[in-house]
């Protein structure tokens, strides 16, 4: 099974998850400080900062891109409810 590792920097927890997992599926389980609103990529509440390993996430969809732009997201920001891990090691924190 293809796997990836994600480190939630704010709580010092690293998880190993199957490739294709969205961060929303795991961040609440470990108690990370990523917070969610609509959970459907519309409100922008779950914007997070990718500290490293952004290349190991699937590219943002048109919808995610639109919401990031509307919220003046800085480079390296993604929506935790949308971002899917592919492989490698990604480090994230609330942002």
């Amino acid at each position, binding site marked *: *099974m293809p*796997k990836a590792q994600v480190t939630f920097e*704010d*709580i*010092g*927890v*690293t*998880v*190993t*998850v*199957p490739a294709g*997992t969205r961060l929303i*599926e*795991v961040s*609440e*389980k*470990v*108690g*990370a*400080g990523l*917070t969610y609103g609509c959970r459907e990529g*519309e409100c922008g509440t779950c914007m997070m900062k990718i500290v490293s390993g952004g290349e190991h996430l699937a590219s943002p969809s048109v919808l995610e891109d639109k919401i990031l732009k*509307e*919220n*003046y997201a800085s480079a390296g920001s993604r929506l935790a409810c949308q971002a899917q891990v592919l492989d490698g090691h990604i480090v994230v924190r*609330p942002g």
Partner: protein
Amino acid sequence: MSAQVAVLPGQPVAIAPDVHWVGALDPGLRQFDIILRTANGTSYNAYAVRGTDGVAVIDTVKAEFADDFFARLWACCRPDEIRAIVLNHLEPDHTGALPALLAAAPQARVYLSTAAMRMLKGIVKDGIDESRLVVVDEETRVDLGGRSLRFLYTPYLHWPDTQCTWVEEDGLLFSGDVFGCHFCDARLFNDRVGDFRFSFDYYYQHIMRPFREHVLSALDLIEPLPIRLIAPAHGPVLRDSPTRYVHRYRQMAAPLLANEAGEREKTLLVFYISAYGNTARMAQAVRDGAEGVEGVRVSLYDLVSGDSVPFVDLIEEADGLVFGSPTINGDAVKPVWELLSSLALVKVKGKFGAAFGSYGWSGEAVGMIEDRLRGLKLRVPRPGVKVKLIPTDEELDACRALGRELAEHLVGRSAPRHIDFTAPGALTA
């Protein structure tokens, strides 16, 4: 009728040369948005600003008061003179007359924030010609001829969409809900109306306080402005010493309690309630574990003898919160829920949280409290401790470990952990 009454049926009220209040009074209202009470109603303040090249309408009113609004608006301008409709805030009490205004003035463009743009389709259900919409930023200027509108980015006061509108030439700040209050008085101006200080502070405490950081950012934008008049979306128009109200916001946005912990100390509050002393013993163990971590100041509170109001003030300033509750009839007990349901008044997002409790046969309380803490956007990095009836020494050790580990998170000294979610069903469990 008193000579001081400013608001008369069907008549706009001049608040500055060629600037009129065209809102509505709602003296019968006693409860607003479910969460707010008012002893003497409210007002829905809308304004018409005239330049040599046209008129801007700033906000509208609650739908039931649309007739009052249009009567006043059409008394000071024609529909075809309206060039701009400014939406400082999309909540229905300010946009109830918007669909009719859009239809009456089809040439007018609508100026709103990015977040408001996303909400608008929920307000104007019949759709709106998108070419009429202008998303504003700090650089946007709407020239009305002789006076112009600029916009301050003041989100989360108290919705994501909120903004203020500034007329530089006259020193007029159309502040939306900021500096507003639910106080209905036909004398309209702050130097004429009855004493509204309590209403002003109450409104801040219930509407703005959860967004304190955003209030401070907004004040940084507002304080340098040479303000001559503040025209909020509710309550009196602030023409006498308007900056006094800006200062009052600055005061209210300061922490209510002086920091008694050292500047570098973190604070952890342990709240508990106990039927037979078992959850109380667990609470003491959580406290003991946390106290062993240098740089953390721990406090223990029995909810059975406490009023939740001062606890809310403590929680606002705390770094970590732990809740202990027995499970009674499959639920956490009422004093715990009362306190947890009071936290919408303050910002708790990002604080660390945990739960524990003794139970007789099922023990749902701990998980329910953890879910609530997550719902309040706390970080819950450690699973809570559930103990069947009387805690053993080992179980009290687990409580001490919970307190210690949470305290270590507060000071940034928690040991890194690794969790494997690749086993079948691990993510859905």
